[in-house]
């Protein structure tokens, strides 16, 4: 079966050869600048990341150290609790940092669970991100390092914590990091803002199947 | 400079004033114009409809006639016909002898506005025309020959003419050759967008570089009882 398709490919390519000789085929450039940003030295990667995330309805807080992060978390969740998003049942990833940070907060919540099976019943998911991309405001979630695939996706609110030092300037850099690091992970997800659609009358609606709110806390 | 006029079958049969105006303009800027009476068509209708053998027959004739000319350039008041001649090498890709001859003729063939600006380096042909007008970018001229700034430069130098840029000037008028009669409903639906933009521009005339577009646009304008005139660039430039 596979032989038949490959055979078909080979025979049709062979038929094309005499025509190919007459066509101009452009060769790929070995070096191409695909960057979206000209390196703006006045702006740090963190600031650029925030700018781009906010442009797609994400929220970004810059914090310094655990206490500061915990304070940010408290603020975010307390604010959410006043809305219809509840924020009473919190799911967290299996990164110990997240658990530690949650215990530093002073929050009144109904439940806290690490990557629970009944993930659909949770209001907020908190994870870290393995890296981020400044030029697009994107989070890089690598499933090899953390159990956050569903925690970052199912609850209506996702809060992600990322180290400023892990923010790449460009998409190309992030791809390179993934490709050239240890073995390429089985499942990597790029997240740029909350979920969205414009399928009904082209009207932008934020919050479809993925989270409706995305908060990123950058740890400087 | 001596130029050989390729008047196109459409202008020859349906809009001779474009041909007369082209000659007038070329002479005014100092060209000697020759007209080879053996010419007929560039073969675009057959090529576009998929009849390549018939297209090749007529293209060979075009090449044979025009390669004999001692003129330095072949000039045509049509972007689409000029683009067709530039496609001749593709028609003869499998025929080395004709391929070379096709390339030679194609290299010498220019659309009028492109010839004036790029070859003669003339921007003002001494024309004058009073009124408000706009320009429609004919698709082949725009996308195959990159003609965009040239007509605008020439128009801006017409004394008395007030030029306004048309909304979506580069949108197709819906002609497309046989498309206009194979799918007339779609052709007219597309055309009506263009007509609406022209009416909104509040002009006395819409100018273009292709008689085919002008027939399409002009045909609808007159059916609508519109006062707006569809005018060829050559006719505008020949005005005094």
């Amino acid at each position, binding site marked *: 079966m596979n032989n038949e398709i490959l055979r078909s490919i080979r025979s049709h390519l062979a038929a094309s050869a005499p025509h190919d000789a007459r066509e101009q085929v452009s060769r790929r450039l070995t070096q*191409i600048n695909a960057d979206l940003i000209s390196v703006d030295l006045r702006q740090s990667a963190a600031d650029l990341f925030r700018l781009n995330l906010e442009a797609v309805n994400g929220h970004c807080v810059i914090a310094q150290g655990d206490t500061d992060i915990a304070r940010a978390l408290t603020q975010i969740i307390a604010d959410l609790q006043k809305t219809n998003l509840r924020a009473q049942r919190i799911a967290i990833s299996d990164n110990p940092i997240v658990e530690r940070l949650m215990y530093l907060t002073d929050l009144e919540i109904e439940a806290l669970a690490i990557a629970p099976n009944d993930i659909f019943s949770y209001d907020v998911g908190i994870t870290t991100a393995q890296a981020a991309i400044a030029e697009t405001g994107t989070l890089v979630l690598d*499933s090899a390092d953390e159990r956050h695939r569903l925690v970052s996706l199912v609850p209506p609110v996702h809060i992600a914590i990322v180290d400023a030092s892990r923010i790449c300037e460009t998409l190309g850099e992030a791809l390179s990091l993934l490709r050239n690091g240890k073995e390429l992970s089985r499942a990597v997800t790029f997240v740029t803002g909350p979920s969205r659609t414009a399928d009904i009358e082209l009207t932008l609606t934020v919050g479809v199947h993925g989270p409706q709110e995305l908060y990123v806390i950058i740890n400087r | 400079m001596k130029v050989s006029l390729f008047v196109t079958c459409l202008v020859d049969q349906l809009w001779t004033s474009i041909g007369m105006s082209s000659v007038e303009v070329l002479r005014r800027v100092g060209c000697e114009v020759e007209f080879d009476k053996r010419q007929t068509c560039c073969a675009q209708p*057959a090529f576009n409809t998929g009849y390549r053998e018939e297209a090749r027959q007529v293209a060979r004739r075009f090449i044979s006639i025009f390669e004999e000319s001692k003129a330095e350039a072949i000039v045509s008041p049509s972007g689409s016909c000029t683009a067709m001649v530039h496609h001749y090498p593709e028609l003869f890709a499998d025929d080395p002898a004709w391929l070379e001859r096709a390339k030679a003729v194609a290299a010498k063939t220019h659309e009028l506005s492109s010839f004036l600006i790029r070859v003669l380096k003339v921007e003002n042909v001494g024309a004058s025309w009073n009124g408000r007008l706009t320009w429609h970018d004919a698709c082949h001229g725009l996308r195959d020959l990159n003609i965009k700034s040239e007509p605008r430069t020439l128009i801006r130098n017409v004394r008395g003419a007030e030029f306004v840029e048309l909304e979506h000037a580069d949108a*197709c008028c819906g002609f497309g050759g046989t498309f206009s009669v194979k799918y007339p409903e*779609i052709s007219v639906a597309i055309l009506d967008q263009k007509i609406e933009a022209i009416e909104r521009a509040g002009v006395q005339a819409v100018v273009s570089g292709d008689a085919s577009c002008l027939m399409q646009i002009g045909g609808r304008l007159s059916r609508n009882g519109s006062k707006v005139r569809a005018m060829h660039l050559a006719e505008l430039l020949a005005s005094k």
Partner: protein
Amino acid sequence: MSSLTSETFRENAKAALADVHLRGALKNATSLFGERRKEAAASLPNWEALRTQARAIKDEVLLHLDRYLEEFVRNAESCGAKVHWARDSAEANSIICRLATERQARIVVKSKSMTTEETHLNKALEAAGMQVVETDLGEYIIQLAEETPSHIIAPAIHKTRGQVAELFTNELGMPPTDDIAQMTRTARLALRDRFAAADVGISGVNFGVAETGTIVIVENEGNIRLTTSLPRMHIAVMGIEKVIPYFADLDIFLKLLPRSGTGQRLTTYQSFITGVKKQQSDEGPEELHIVLLDNGRSRMLAHPVTRQSLACIRCGACLNACPVYQQIGGHAYGSVYQGPIGAVITPQLMGIEKTSQLPYASSLCGACREVCPVKIDIPRLLLHLRSEIAPRKGSVAERLAFKVWARTMMSPTLYKLSSVAGRMFQRVMPISRAWTNARDLRPIESKSFHDLWNE
């Protein structure tokens, strides 16, 4: 609406032109996406270089497609994916139905995939006794309405909010509303438990990376992430032309695709899936099956002009730019692939017998070529297809007409006579009637330019 075929293209088009609401919706969608694409392209100083590079990469892959596919398969399988080769739609559907049946699947969730619409997969799965749920909001809407997509990016663009609300009220018991956010929430809730209950998730593939065996899928809603991480089996359907050589090449394509389609810098989510999880306790499906689909694609490799069809990354930019599509929308094409790319791919995939109108449904304006991120020369392809269709499927009258035309254009005497005949018969020629229905016709001049020159 789903029974429209390419054979009745002209009738389909006329019906579409009469649909005032559809035309309004199309105008909004195409001009919005078109404007956004233009801004997105203009904001990237090296846009042209990216296009050139993307096309060069595609040309490289397609010229050695067998080799790159073999590399892709090897790498995907080494990470635990199972790869299946499907020669045609029937085979693809049969493979997928077998996999789902072996899984004893009852509920299948699907994310938007043109390839699965090409094979009519949903019908096959339903015939095999499974419940298939489209999860992309636009696809979900038209599935409930039992219609087909009218636009590649926004499949339900032809429906008003009122129509969607009525649909949701009737099918999902939603309280009447005209609030779009409320409708979206309703769909989200309705689909939540489908995701949770699904046994199998089926997706398409935007790019398959040969170097690593990774499949990459992009989206805005999150339904692809849910479809490909919750059910225990994930089936990814991939046209054989979707392969790209290197992981690093994704930088180019991920920048071109969202900008060309909707003007976005990046879509909300990209999923990079390489094989299956390493440990049973990890999140994600236990099985990944990649179904490679040929269905006529390999035939297109036989000539450089047709081969470029396979460079398409399904962005939809050509649809939005096309003056024909802008007026008639997607249904009129009577096939899965619509607009300019549809007009060239459909005849090649399905053969020209029943699709011969499509390559003629174009004014050859070239707007599509201008916006295509991989620089497919669609007008050249259309002309190529016309040159194959005319001699074989042109009517006897037309073929004869062009033979006469050629003889006339070759002979100055006949040419002169033709204008005499033209002056006499212009108004009654069928061609004239098609013209004069809505446009005035210039009469043939009483003296041709030739005549005037001689004076």
